[in-house]
């Protein structure tokens, strides 16, 4: 069976690279032949990417944004895990919050960003608040779901070995629900990334979103395209890595 699956998998991966290459060539040709002042040939964009990797201003903005994303992600993780564990422990809290959290992502929460800027001023706080609001519910929901879905048998085994509640949590409930925690962290990180870059892009004083917005309004299209290219490529690599690791995580844990 395995021998049959492997060539198909190889063919799929080969086709994926082919699709990527065709898309790249098509994009290159499109940019090359539809010469307009605002469209820049692909080789120019790639040259711009190369130039940006040593550009002080871009690197400073880029690293500031990364620090902001990581900081917000840490805040979301802490609050999301606490809330998720609270929802797991207290049924009342769960009943009250679960429908709310599920409807939560229906709201165009970016619309609140101008309100936050009014409340907190033009600095990093409204950005962090938007990112946090956008990401912690996903973490809380996944943590609660994971802990609630731990099979009762596991807990019974722990009880019959007379584990303390603390041991029960760290030896059984936490490991058994870990893949769900990871899904929550993955979603939370992606949402942080989206919310922070978007808020910086809309209105801010610093960061790579602001840098891109400045290049756009200043007609520096080579910088603009190169910057978008770098940020999206990095984001795509992070997302794909997390997705791949998540799938591996689930596979490894479900076999046991």
């Amino acid at each position, binding site marked *: 069976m395995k021998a049959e699956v492997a060539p*198909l998998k190889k*063919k*799929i991966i080969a*086709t*994926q690279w082919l*699709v990527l290459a065709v898309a790249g060539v098509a994009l290159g040709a499109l940019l090359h032949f539809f010469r307009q002042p*605002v*469209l820049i040939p692909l080789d120019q964009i790639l040259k711009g990417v190369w130039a940006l990797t040593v550009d002080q201003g871009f690197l400073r903005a880029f690293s500031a944004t990364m620090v902001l994303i990581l900081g917000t992600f840490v805040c979301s993780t802490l609050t999301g895990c606490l809330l998720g564990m609270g929802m797991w422990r207290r049924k009342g809290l769960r*009943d*009250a*919050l679960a*429908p*709310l959290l599920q*409807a939560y*992502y*229906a*709201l*165009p929460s*970016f*619309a*609140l960003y*101008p*309100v936050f*800027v*009014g*409340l907190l001023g033009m600095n990093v706080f409204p950005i962090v608040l938007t990112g946090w609001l956008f990401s912690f519910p996903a973490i809380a929901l996944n943590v609660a779901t994971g802990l609630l879905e731990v099979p009762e048998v596991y807990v019974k085994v722990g009880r019959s070995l007379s584990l303390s509640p603390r041991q029960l949590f760290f030896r059984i409930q936490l490991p058994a629900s870990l893949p769900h925690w990871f899904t929550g962290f993955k979603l939370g990180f*992606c949402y942080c*990334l*989206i919310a922070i*870059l*978007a808020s910086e*892009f*809309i209105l801010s004083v610093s960061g790579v*979103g602001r840098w*891109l917005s400045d290049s*756009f309004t200043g007609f520096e299209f080579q910088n*603009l395209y190169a910057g*978008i290219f770098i*940020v*999206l490529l990095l*984001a*795509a690599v992070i*997302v*794909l890595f997390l*997705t791949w690791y998540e799938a591996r995580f689930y596979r490894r844990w479900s076999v046991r």
Partner: protein
Amino acid sequence: MSGWRRGMRTYGLVVVFFLAGWQAISWIVPRFALSSPWETVQTLGFLLNQSWFHSHLSTTLYETAWAYLFVILTGLSVGVALGLSRFWGEVAEPYVVSIYSLPKVLLYPLFLIVFTVGAASKIAFGWFHGIFPLIIMTRNTVKNINPVYLKIAYSFHLNFFQLFKAILLPYALPSIVTGLRLGFNLTLLGVVLGELIASSRGLGYLLAARAAEGFIVEEVMAIVLFLFLFALAINGVFGLWERSLTRGERAARYGR
């Protein structure tokens, strides 16, 4: 019935807590930074009677409707195609998943350049923002269809539209409705984001303008409230539809 009533009571409590918290914050912070719930509702009532507000509202609705129409048409057909062809589905998966979780707003300048600052760029961006959840949900359901159903279709010589209408759609409708709901949320968000960043009409523009021109907080809050209520209402309708579909399914499964 009692479960339904308890659910309503929980919702009611959550709404009361939310309003109380909002009121409390509006007492603490300065008046220019946050308006109270009642002031916001009054302002919304005032806005809804203004003809200039109607013109912005209808612009947003018009753009969202067109974008959503394209989302439905293209998302369903691409999702069904990727679900029926296992090979192409697997090839496309990493691209679809990674684009779904990228900060798409960074690509908005490209939409502005290609479609110029008008309704077209918002429609295109709303479409791009909203299509991916529908593709993913449709593909995942169609992929797992019982092959016997497809064989029946084959033996009846159904053409593609008959196959879609008689077999795929009824089979996949519950998760397609979920995909349609998620897709609507993201389409609306995409259109509003597009208007927020660069436009001269629409609710997003109004939000940005009222936030920038001396920060008229009552109107900013009223617009945010309107967008939230609108999104919640549409989601409520989709939620009822989903529930009625799965109720039929449950009844069929248990023979009731």
